[in-house]
């Protein structure tokens, strides 16, 4: 299921990682991130261990590291503040290439950078091996609230429909000479957004009628018959187990 509706973070494949049930991967990724966050920041070697673990999963899933690293740039805007910490942090300070850097500031920046990056890489690994539709099925099996699942499922379907409607409205505007180059000309665009909202709301009402007509009773039916076995869980949680061992080691070493 889910083929034909891919997202840019998904890399289609038939590897054992791709074939694992989504809920197993979601839980494993969540536990992995918890372990990373719980590792003391001074345990430098342990973070290298996490990276090796992820690289092992990429190898098993046949994901090129370059493909993964280029997408991890998404994190850049969020860690830019970390760069300031070595300059603004407190004593003691050390001199490096003529710059006076704060030692706790450097450690703080490292902490944000390494944990953020490992977290993003873990999420990207999950996204690269799991189609969007399967992620939702996984969340449904993990008993995420029914309303959230319904909204997310409909969003997956309708985001493109609404985007197409917005494109048609834009074409209609510029076909009638609208040329919004200046700030005081954005009024028509803003009204367009308003009418797009109203149209989407009306579509929502019609979709609701169509759902009721086919027996909808407030919850998306479970359509997949795939059964998640103990073997799936064992296999999928093995990397999380390694991550746990790494985190514990990080606390044990002085």
């Amino acid at each position, binding site marked *: 299921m889910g*083929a*034909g509706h891919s997202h840019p973070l998904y890399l289609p494949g038939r590897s054992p990682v791709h074939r694992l049930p989504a809920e197993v991967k979601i839980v494993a990724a969540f536990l992995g991130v918890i372990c990373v966050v719980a590792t003391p920041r001074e345990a430098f070697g342990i973070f290298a261990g996490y990276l090796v673990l992820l690289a092992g999963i990429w190898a098993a899933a046949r994901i090129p590291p370059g493909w993964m690293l280029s997408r991890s740039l998404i994190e850049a805007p969020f860690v830019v503040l970390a760069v300031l910490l070595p300059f603004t942090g407190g004593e003691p300070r050390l001199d490096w290439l003529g710059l006076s850097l704060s030692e706790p500031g450097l450690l703080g920046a490292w902490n944000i950078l390494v944990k953020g990056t490992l977290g993003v890489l873990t999420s990207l690994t999950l996204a690269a091996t799991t189609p969007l539709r399967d992620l939702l099925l996984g969340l449904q099996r993990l008993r995420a609230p029914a309303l959230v699942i319904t909204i997310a499922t409909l969003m997956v379907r309708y985001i493109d429909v609404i985007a197409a409607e917005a494109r048609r409205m834009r074409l209609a505007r510029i076909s009638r000479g609208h040329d919004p180059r200046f700030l005081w000309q954005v009024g028509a665009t803003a009204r367009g957004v308003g009418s797009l909202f109203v149209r989407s709301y009306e579509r929502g009402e019609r979709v609701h009628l169509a759902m009721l007509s086919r027996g909808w009773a407030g919850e998306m039916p479970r359509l997949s018959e795939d059964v998640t076995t103990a073997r799936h869980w064992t296999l999928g949680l093995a990397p999380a187990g390694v991550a746990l061992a790494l985190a514990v080691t990080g606390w044990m070493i002085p």
Partner: protein
Amino acid sequence: MDDPVTAAASLVVDGLAFAYPDGHQALFGVDLRIERGERVALLGPNGAGKTTLALHLNGILSPGHGTVSVGGLPVEKANLREIRRRVGIVFQDPDDQLFMPSVGEDVAFGPANFGVSGAELQARVGAALATVGMSEHRDRSPLHLSGGQRRRVALATVLACEPEILVLDEPSSNLDPVARRELAEVLLGLGTTILMVTHDLPYALQLCPRSVVIDNGEVVADAPTRQLLADADLLRRHRLELPFGFALEN
């Protein structure tokens, strides 16, 4: 409802009247009976009450007066689930009807809600898609289908519920001539009872031996389609007309 003659009919509408909450009276005592296997066109100008009538058939709207029964089962709150399985409404815009991320999931949505699961659910989905000639598109997103394909998948979504009666709202709208003919071929091959709400009079003639005209919330004509469309005075009185170049002799 024990009357065996009544039980045999796919649809019986008796004295149905309905006013919207704002006071607008949309239906004034509609009577309509459709036998099992019949194909009937519901014609009438905009605002005549066609869609209001259609939404009563599966209990989305509840009548002010009168009754509706489907295959002998009255449309009332206690029976709504079974009624919605028996009445398959195909809405005008397939983008409203196809709300799941893939074709297969959309077709499975109805029967899964009505308690079908496992191998039988998969078989239902397969059979419904095969009926409309869309089997190879099972895993695709509805977004990537043509208008005609979407219309046929929308039909499959209700066929999978094995309905007693199909209610089609403007099935030929926005279809190119080939898609229109392909849909007609599918519909003619079904054998299911059909009520087709339409403004497309040649399509009504092609598909439905019988037509009912509704105007101002009342049934104003009920006759064989050819005879009805040949009555120029009747058509004119109810803002209906054949497309340019068409004329029918009685």
